[in-house]
C-alpha cells in the first residue's frame, strides 16, 4: 500500500504552503500532495487583485481585524481573525523571500493598493495576476524539497477513518483508472471552494467542492455554507472576474444613465472622479462585495440596469484612469475585457454583473485547522476556520491560504510525529470496498438514463434561483426539494464510457455526486438561518438577528437530509455593531 506520513489533498495555494511548511520542519517526513490537476492549474492561479497584510506605518493590527470582522458582519471567529492578521505580514514577506514578484515602490519596498471594505490600503499585489504569481512561486519553491512527493491528477474519493483517527484516503489515478488507498498519519484537505454549484461563477471547472464532500461524508460538519459570495463585477456570459483592483485604482460603477447608483444604497456619497481623495475607502465602489452585489439586484428591480444578451449589466468605468495607469496597474483587466467582452476599457466602460465568487463556509476547523476527526485538517477556501464570516473581504483569501496552509502543515506534521502508523489491514478492506464502489457505480455502470450534465445544470439552476443573492423560504424550499430529487436521480446516471484511461466522464460524475451533497447542506443551512446577514439576505427575514443567529450553522451528514445545528461565534474584542460603509 502507498504510504506517507502526511497527505495533502489539493495542490493549490493552501496545499502547497502546507507542503512547504512540512518540508521546512523536517526533511524526514514524507509528504504527498494528491491533486486532481497539476498543481499549477489550481484555481489560486486566477486570483487577480492581491493579498492583504499590514505592513505600512499608517496601518495597524486593529484596522485589519476590524475591517475583516465588520466585513464579515460579525460572523468571523475573532480569535482566528487576530491570529490571521498577526501572521499575515510575515507570510507575505516569506513569499517575497521565495521570489514572488510583488509590485514595488520606487524605493524598492513592496507596494500596496486599496481594496473594498478597507479603511487603509493594505493589499500587496503582483500587478493584477497576484494569484498566478503566488501559486507559481509556491509550486516552484515546493520542487526544491525532496520529501514532497506529488500525485498529480489523482482524485481523492474517500477519507479513511479507522479507530477514530484519519489514516489516509483512497484516490483514483485518473490516468489509469485505478483506485488505491494511500495511508498516512495525517491528512490535510485543501481542495478549494464550491463555486461550480452555481451556473454563473468566476470559478474554474475544477472548483466542485470535492474536499467539502469528502470531509462531510467522513463525519466532519460543514460550517456556514449559506454564505456564498457574489462578486459585483463579473463579465456577462463567461463569468470571468474583473478584479476589485479596478475599483481600488479608481474605477466607478454606473447605471444606464451613467449615474453612480451605489449612493442610493447606503454606501456613501460619491466624490468626483477627479477629486484627489477619490476613491474613498470603505465607501461607494469600495464598499464590501455583498453589499455591492445586493445593490445591483435592487437597482435592477428599480429599472436602472442595462439589458444585454446574458442578462442585465451595469457599467464599470475605468476610462478616466487613462491608458498608462491601466496598462501598468491592471493590464489583465484590459486583456480580459478586450478578449472576452470585446470592448477596450481604455475607451469604453466594461459591462459587469454579480457573479458567484467565493465559498465563505466550509469544513469546520478549530483555530489550528484541525477538524473533529483526529489527524484530519483543512485549510484554504474549502475550510471554515472562520475568518470570513458572512462576507469575505477582498484580498483576505490569498493571505488566508498562506497563514492557515502553514498552520495546517505544522499541525499535521506534529500529529504525524506523535501518532502511530496506520492500521494497514483495516485500510485494505476499506480500499477494497471503495474500489468496488467506484468500479460498479461508475466505470462499469450498466444501464442508467440520467444525463450527467443535465443533472448538473438543473442543480445549478435551482441553486441560482433558490439560494442566490436574495433568498426566501419558498425559494429555498423548492431548491431543497429539487436537490433531494436530483440525489435520487443521480443513482440512475448514464455513463457511456467504460474505459479506464483518463476517463473524464467518471471524474465529472464523481464531482457531481459530491456537489449534490454540498448543495444540499448549503440549502438547508440557508433555510434554517432566518435572518439577513452579509451575503445571506432573506427577503422574508430582513434584519440581522444577533440574539438568535450570531452563531455558525453546522451541517452534519446523515445520508439523507443533513442535520443542522449551531455553534457560538467567538467574540474577543469587537462586540457586534452596525456595519457602516460610507457614512
Amino acid at each position, binding site marked *: 500500500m502507498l504510504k506517507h506520513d502526511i497527505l495533502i489533498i489539493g495542490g493549490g495555494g493552501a496545499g502547497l504552503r502546507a507542503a512547504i511548511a512540512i518540508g521546512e520542519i523536517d526533511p524526514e517526513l514524507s509528504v504527498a500532495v494528491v491533486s486532481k*490537476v*497539476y498543481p*499549477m*492549474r*489550481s*484555481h489560486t*492561479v*486566477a486570483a487577480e487583485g492581491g493579498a492583504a497584510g499590514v505592513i505600512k506605518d499608517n496601518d495597524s493590527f486593529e484596522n485589519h481585524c476590524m475591517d475583516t470582522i465588520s466585513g464579515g458582519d460579525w460572523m468571523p471567529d475573532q480569535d482566528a481573525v487576530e491570529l490571521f492578521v498577526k501572521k499575515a505580514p*510575515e507570510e507575505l*514577506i*516569506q513569499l*517575497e*523571500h*521565495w*521570489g514572488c*514578484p*510583488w*509590485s*514595488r*515602490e*520606487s*524605493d*524598492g*519596498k*513592496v507596494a500596496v493598493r486599496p481594496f473594498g471594505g478597507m479603511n487603509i490600503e493594505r493589499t500587496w499585489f503582483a*500587478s493584477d*495576476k497576484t494569484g*498566478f*504569481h503566488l501559486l*507559481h512561486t509556491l509550486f*516552484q*519553491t515546493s*520542487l*526544491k524539497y525532496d520529501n514532497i512527493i506529488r500525485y*498529480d491528477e489523482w482524485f481523492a474519493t474517500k477519507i479513511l477513518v479507522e479507530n477514530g483517527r484519519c489514516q489516509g484516503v483512497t484516490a483514483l489515478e485518473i*490516468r489509469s483508472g485505478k483506485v488505491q488507498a494511500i495511508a498516512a498519519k495525517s491528512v490535510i484537505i485543501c481542495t478549494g471552494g464550491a463555486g461550480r454549484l452555481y451556473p454563473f461563477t468566476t470559478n*474554474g*471547472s*475544477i472548483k466542485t467542492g470535492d474536499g467539502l464532500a469528502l470531509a462531510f461524508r467522513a463525519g466532519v460538519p460543514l460550517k456556514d455554507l449559506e454564505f456564498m459570495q457574489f462578486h459585483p463585477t463579473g463579465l456577462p*456570459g*463567461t463569468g*470571468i*472576474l474583473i478584479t476589485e483592483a479596478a475599483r481600488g485604482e479608481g474605477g466607478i460603477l454606473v447605471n444606464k444613465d451613467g449615474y453612480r447608483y451605489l449612493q442610493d444604497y447606503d454606501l456613501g456619497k460619491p466624490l468626483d472622479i477627479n477629486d484627489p481623495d477619490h476613491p474613498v475607502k470603505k465607501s461607494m465602489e469600495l464598499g464590501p462585495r455583498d453589499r455591492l452585489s445586493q445593490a445591483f439586484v435592487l437597482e435592477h428591480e428599480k429599472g436602472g440596469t442595462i439589458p444585454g444578451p446574458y442578462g442585465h449589466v451595469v457599467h464599470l468605468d475605468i476610462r478616466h484612469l487613462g491608458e498608462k495607469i491601466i496598462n501598468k496597474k491592471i493590464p489583465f483587466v484590459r*486583456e*480580459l475585457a478586450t*478578449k*472576452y467582452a*470585446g470592448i477596450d476599457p481604455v475607451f469604453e466602460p466594461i459591462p459587469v454583473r454579480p457573479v458567484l465568487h467565493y465559498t465563505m463556509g466550509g469544513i469546520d476547523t478549530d483555530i489550528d485547522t484541525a477538524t473533529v476527526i483526529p489527524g484530519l485538517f483543512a485549510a484554504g477556501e474549502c475550510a471554515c476556520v472562520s475568518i470570513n464570516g458572512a462576507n469575505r473581504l477582498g484580498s483576505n483569501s490569498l493571505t488566508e491560504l498562506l497563514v492557515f496552509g502553514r498552520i495546517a502543515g505544522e499541525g499535521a506534521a506534529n500529529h504525524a510525529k506523535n501518532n502511530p502508523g496506520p492500521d494497514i489491514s483495516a485500510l485494505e478492506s476499506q480500499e477494497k470496498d471503495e474500489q468496488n464502489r467506484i468500479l460498479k457505480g461508475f466505470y462499469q455502470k450498466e444501464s442508467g438514463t440520467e444525463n*450527467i*450534465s443535465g443533472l448538473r445544470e438543473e442543480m445549478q439552476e435551482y441553486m441560482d434561483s433558490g439560494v442566490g443573492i436574495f433568498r426566501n423560504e419558498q425559494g429555498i424550499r423548492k431548491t431543497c426539494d429539487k436537490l433531494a430529487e436530483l440525489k435520487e436521480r443521480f443513482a440512475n446516471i448514464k*455513463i*457511456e*464510457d467504460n*474505459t*479506464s*484511461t*483518463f*476517463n*473524464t*466522464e467518471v471524474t465529472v460524475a464523481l464531482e457531481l455526486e459530491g456537489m449534490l451533497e454540498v448543495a444540499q447542506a448549503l440549502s438547508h443551512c440557508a433555510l434554517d438561518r432566518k435572518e439577513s446577514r452579509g451575503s445571506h439576505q432573506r427577503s422574508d427575514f430582513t434584519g440581522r438577528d444577533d440574539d438568535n443567529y450570531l452563531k455558525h450553522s453546522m451541517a452534519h451528514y446523515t445520508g439523507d437530509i443533513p442535520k443542522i445545528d449551531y455553534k457560538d461565534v467567538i467574540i474577543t474584542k469587537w462586540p457586534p455593531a452596525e456595519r457602516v460603509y460610507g457614512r
Partner: protein
Amino acid sequence: MGKTIELEIFRYIPEIDEQPAYRSYEVEFEDDWVILDAINHIKDKMDGSLSYRWSCRMGVCGSCGMMINGIPKLTCATFLKDYYPKKVKVEPLLGFPVERDLVIVMDDFMTKLENVKPWMIRDKDKEKTIDKGEYLQSPVQLEKFIQFSMCINCLLCYSACPVYVVDNNFIGPAAIALAQRYNLDSRDDGQDQRNEYIGKHEGIWDCTFVGECSKVCPEDVDPAAAIQQAKVTNTQNFVKSILWPFGGKK
C-alpha cells in the same frame, strides 16, 4: 443561434483504438464562443467519452492548450468565429505522447521544470530572516525579469518548436525561460547552478532560433529571447573563465 461549425477532433482511447482517428462534430455556436465552449458542448451534449483538460476559461491556468488547425493555441482564448465557415481541426499538443484524446503526457516537462531549479538560490551571507523584512527590489530590477515570470506552463511553445518535436531531449523554451526568470532576479544568486544544466548541448545550444515559441506564447513571455540571452551570458562566462584571471570570479 443558427451558425453551425464542424469540429474535427483527434480521438484516441488506448483500450479501444489501435490507432488514433478523427471524428467530426457539428456544433451550433454563438459569436462569443471559444473553441473550448464547443468542446464542452460536445462533451456535455453529444459525446461524454471525449477527454481533455480545462479549468479557468480565462487563459491563466494553462490546461487547455491544443493544436487548432495545426497551430498550438489555448482553446479558451481562441474564437470559433475566427475560423467559421471553415472547419476546425482539434488535436492534442504536438511533440508529446498522447494519453488519450486531447490529453497529452506532460511528465517530460515536469522533470525539466524541476531540473532548471526554478526557486530562489541565495548566497548564505545574503540570506535574511523574515523579521528583517523584504528584500528591496526596485521597479527597474523587477522589470528585468517579470516578463519571463509570466509563463503559465501551457506548453504551446514546446509544440511550436520543431527542435523539441523532432527530439524530446531539448530542454525546451518554457523551462529555459523560467531558468532565466530566476537568473535575472536581483534577489537570486543561483545562475551558475542553473547554467550548468541549461548550458548543456540539449539546453540553449540546441535552440536554432526558429522563434515560433515566442509567437505562440499566450502570455508574451518571449522564451526565444530568454534562450538567446542565456546563450550570450553563457558565452561571456565561458570566455571570461578562460581569459580573465581567476576565471573572472572575485
